[in-house]
């Protein structure tokens, strides 16, 4: 069961409250967390504390049900139980900001947010270039990731089966992926070029 420290505003989520998916991955139903926090808020202890979160429920527009949103507010932070070994928490059930308020420890988070139409502070909205230039992982933009995937799937290769393999761009002008392998075939280093 979750607990909330009133003096530090730390919300602690035990690993036992998460659904084990195997392989060190655990699933967190964000809506379940919301309900737990609501329950705590109306306890004797919680009544003296500010709200822990803001919630907008699901909404159906023209037959499509859009996900709820859940936002931790008022300075609260979320700590997933540190059990001494690393594990991953995959969030489902809502768009949320847990990644922004999560305490750094051995637990990593798969946020799982998904945006449809979004608003930007200025301008008429996100342009296609804005979307393709969004950093996905490791500083690589969506456009670069797609080029690298294309090279891995269909690009010409060199050195396959040796200690160094390369996967070429579609036009063969450069190596999109250059990887070195040990004797067991494990990748030792990978160099990516999505430009």
């Amino acid at each position, binding site marked *: 069961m979750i607990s909330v420290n009133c003096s530090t505003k730390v919300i602690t989520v035990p690993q036992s409250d998460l659904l084990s998916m195997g392989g060190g991955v655990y699933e967190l139903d964000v809506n379940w967390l919301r309900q737990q926090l*609501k*329950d705590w*808020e*109306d*306890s004797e202890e*919680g*009544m003296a504390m500010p709200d822990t979160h803001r919630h907008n429920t699901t909404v159906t527009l023209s037959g499509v049900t859009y996900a709820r949103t859940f936002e931790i507010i008022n300075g609260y932070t979320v700590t997933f139980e540190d059990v001494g070994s690393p594990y991953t928490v995959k969030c489902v059930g809502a768009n949320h900001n847990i990644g922004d308020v999560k305490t750094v420890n051995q637990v990593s988070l798969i946020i799982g947010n998904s945006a449809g139409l979004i608003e930007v502070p200025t301008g008429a909205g996100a342009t296609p270039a804005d979307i393709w230039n969004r950093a996905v992982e490791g500083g690589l933009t969506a456009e670069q990731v797609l080029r690298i995937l294309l090279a891995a799937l269909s690009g010409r290769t060199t050195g396959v089966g040796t200690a160094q393999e390369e996967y070429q761009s579609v036009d063969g002008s450069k190596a999109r992926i250059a990887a070195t392998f040990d004797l067991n075939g494990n990748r030792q280093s990978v160099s990516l070029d999505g430009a």
Partner: protein
Amino acid sequence: MSAAYPSGWNTVVPVETGKVSASLGPPVIGAFRLPTDPLFYANFTLQNVIGGSRFRITRNDNGNELASGLVPGSVATDHTISGIAGFENPMLMRIVIRNASGSTKYRSFETFAFLYKSGGSSYILQQVD
């Protein structure tokens, strides 16, 4: 209020209430009110509050708790809280109502209201979260 201390032997000092009064036996002929003592006590009604909700009423000026508790029942009702201490007339209060322990969970409701010597009330509009 004026006070009289005719002699030490008949001075009543009920320290547990924070008040000092002097008497010559019944009736009380004088009393002092400390600055921290309430001016009055009055009833306050939470209208249309859903049974099972927990309420907390605090002074708006310093956040001190005036009353808290659980509304009995399970349906919308008027719930009167008796004897809330008033420190000024009127006194602005902050009211927080929460109800999320049952299957239906409500948004936290917060409002402000004045407590008068004659009492007061506030309409509570809780929305499903």
